[in-house]
């Protein structure tokens, strides 16, 4: 198959490679083959190879994907692949993006858990059947791959926008009954770079490899913000 791979940083070009097809071949296998056999200067990022670490996401034939679990069979178009770095993040080199802004936004959305108990206190009992726990379960498996961030039109239009992953993280903490910083967090995600900028295009939900719906989390945050505003807390 023909594989066009982005080489360079913000300025650069696509370089074409011929890569042999293999059964059960993933896009990460293709990139690794190129780097080991055809062009050792190719920069890319991966770690676990099994969809846990969130480091290998790239744009494949125009769509952001986790490459380690994307089979070539599913994405090959006219016997060709076009592999680029993730969109909406600065390119360091070739397929490697600088993810600092992405993770800084988790911090800006108050993505840190702030409990009140110490190690001397007993565990907080959270029933697995509670509605809050169910909401958290739906969003907690995020691996921080930035596929949603790369797919988000609003991030492309407004670089300050916190983005789906950071807001999803905020949502899981807002639903955490142990957390003590709910109002502060709601304030952080209600500004003009927050939830109210979301257009509900649902690209994040469509593309998330873990089948999380950040759109649902953002809608939940809007409801929580509304309640908080009506109570005069915001």
């Amino acid at each position, binding site marked *: 198959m023909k594989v066009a791979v982005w080489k360079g940083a913000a300025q650069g070009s696509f370089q074409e490679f011929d890569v042999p097809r293999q059964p059960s071949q993933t896009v990460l296998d293709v990139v690794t083959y190129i780097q080991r056999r055809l062009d050792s200067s190719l920069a890319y990022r991966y770690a676990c190879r099994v969809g846990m670490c969130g480091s290998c996401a790239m744009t494949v034939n125009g769509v952001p994907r986790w490459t380690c679990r994307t089979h070539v069979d599913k994405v090959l178009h006219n016997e060709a692949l076009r592999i680029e770095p993730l969109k909406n993040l600065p390119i360091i080199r070739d397929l490697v993006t600088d993810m600092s802004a992405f993770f800084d936004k988790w911090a800006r959305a108050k993505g840190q858990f702030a409990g009140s108990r110490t190690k001397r206190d007993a565990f907080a009992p959270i029933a697995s059947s509670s509605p809050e726990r169910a909401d958290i379960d739906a969003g907690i498996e995020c691996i921080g791959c930035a596929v949603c961030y790369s797919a988000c039109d*609003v991030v492309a239009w407004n670089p300050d926008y916190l983005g789906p992953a950071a807001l999803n993280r905020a949502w899981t903490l807002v639903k955490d009954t142990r957390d003590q910083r709910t109002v502060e967090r709601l*304030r952080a995600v209600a500004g*003009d770079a927050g939830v*109210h900028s979301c257009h509900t295009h649902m690209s994040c939900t469509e593309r998330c490899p873990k089948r999380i719906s950040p759109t649902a989390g953002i809608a939940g945050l*809007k409801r929580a913000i509304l309640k908080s*505003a009506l109570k005069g807390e*915001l």
Partner: protein
Amino acid sequence: MSARGETALWIAQRASAAVLGLCAIVHLAVIIYAVQGGLSAAEILGRTRGNLAWLAFYSIFVLAAAVHAPIGLRAIVIEWLGWRGRSRTGFLVIFAALLGWLGMRAVFAVFL
């Protein structure tokens, strides 16, 4: 803008959208009903002139549009033009006032 201001705008836009949705349905239903027997300027004015219920309904319709449209336009000018600050707010306030004024002018033109 502050979280509180942003939230207030969001609530205003959602609430005005709900009002607009209802108003548009009533507006279309009445048009379809009213044109059954033919349509003339005299017939329309006969129904609208001095009709306080009609005046109240369309005043609410105009007010909701004047609230809703500038908030939506605000998001568009931020995303497409990167326009922020006082000049943008001034533009949007003028736009809202213009919508309200033109709308109410049209309402009173057939009420009085």
